[in-house]
């Protein structure tokens, strides 16, 4: 299974899901890469009804979460009644099928 990574700055410990050449906190340039998963808190969400290409769903729900170490990420949300602040678990799953290929990404349940 494809892993979704996060990058921890070796100088200050700041962890980000997005890969940067320089740490956004301290401008450090060396990082440890590790899979991103585990428990996270929901910061905001939206149910998207007007979808872009390659969807058969009538709508999808997207959310931004914060992991326990402060790292943040956006992903697909699979809960019926999302509420800001709720605890979620991040897993890797299929988030989109693009040109018959499954795209793997973060799924929050």
């Amino acid at each position, binding site marked *: 299974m494809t892993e979704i990574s996060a990058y921890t700055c070796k100088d200050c410990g700041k962890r980000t899901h997005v890969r940067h050449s320089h740490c956004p906190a301290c401008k450090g340039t060396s990082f440890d890469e590790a899979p991103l998963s585990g428990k996270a808190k929901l910061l905001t969400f939206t149910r998207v009804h007007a979808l872009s290409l390659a969807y058969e769903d009538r709508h999808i729900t997207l959310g931004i979460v914060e992991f326990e170490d402060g790292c943040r990420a*956006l992903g697909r949300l699979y809960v019926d009644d999302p509420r800001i602040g709720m605890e979620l678990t991040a897993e890797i799953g299929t988030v989109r099928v693009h040109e018959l290929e499954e*795209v793997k990404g973060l799924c929050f349940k």
Partner: protein
Amino acid sequence: MLRDVYIAGCGMTGFGRAAGDLLDILEEAALAATEDAGIFSEIESVFVANMGAGILNHMSGLGSALVDRLCLYPTPAELVENGPASGGSAAKIGAYAVGSGAVDVALVVGGEKMRAVTGWEATDFVATLSHPQAEYIYGVTLPALAGMFARLYMEKYGITPEHLARVALKNHENGTKNPYAHIQQAVSLDGILNRPEAVVNNPWVAEPLRMFDCCPVSDGGAGLVLCSKEMAEKTGKPLVKISGIGQATDTHAVHEREDPIELKAVQLAAKKAFEEAGIKPSDVDVAELHDAFTILEIAESEQVGFFERGTGHIALEKGETSLGGKLPINPSGGLKARGHPVGATGVAQLVEIAWQLRGDAGERQVKNARTGFTCNFGGFGNNVLCFVLEREN
């Protein structure tokens, strides 16, 4: 800048669905601006703003294409792409070219032909500006980013769906007074919010945003002739000076912002534009803000410094931002009603303010407008340009 830069001519095409191709749109906008200025062969540099011709129209090299259409060769020309802030960027680069003394006259033309593709292709095209691995793959759309932003902003400041709808009402009302607007039809709270059939008229796009919280997908173009004071004086028109330009960037992925509702690039771009002009936000008589989504007009009106944080929706409710109010915002109808051909928008905002300062804005004229402001919001706030324009005589 080493010397002052003036808008000697401006013009635009009717926004909406264009009969011609993208090059026809650019030509029409260029000619509207150059005819308004009475300047053509003196043009020394051409800057074309466009975001998506490569994806939407299978075209590239638009600077050269426009120069050829106008037979302006061997005048230097290039394409400027900065997402939905392409127009603002091209205007900035044109102003810097004149302001540095490199050229005396620059032509800036923004244009987009978005209705060449289906609605979802257009949605997907705009979404390509999101972060490819951290946002785009999840099916993020710009309305989705705006929806997540709106949910937090509304909760924090007590903004209701009715406040959002009131932005749409105001801007559509203004749009009825703008012959260039994509949508020249007023809407009512009953029609888009209160009555049971409103759910059909105004379906969800990305909760809590509905269709009337989002700008339409438009074709259109806008042009500016920028020049030195000596050249501008020869036109015999009121002198409109670009007295401040500010630009700032922010994180590509929205979730990387410390507080996702802080539009830092908006705050910094506005601050720089005001500082360069040597004025305060309270000195502004008329503004064009980037209301791609209703929530953005409210948020920008606070974050550029017009209103205290959390009070933009109250100023709107009191009518302070309506035509006739203390600070009319989006007299053109904004992106909401004038439309949003992405590459053209930043230029169209400047055209509207130039018309307002010259007293050429017809039925939507803001009385005694002498100082104007624009905010052109690229990405989801990751690249923003603000301008201050002032009438001199």
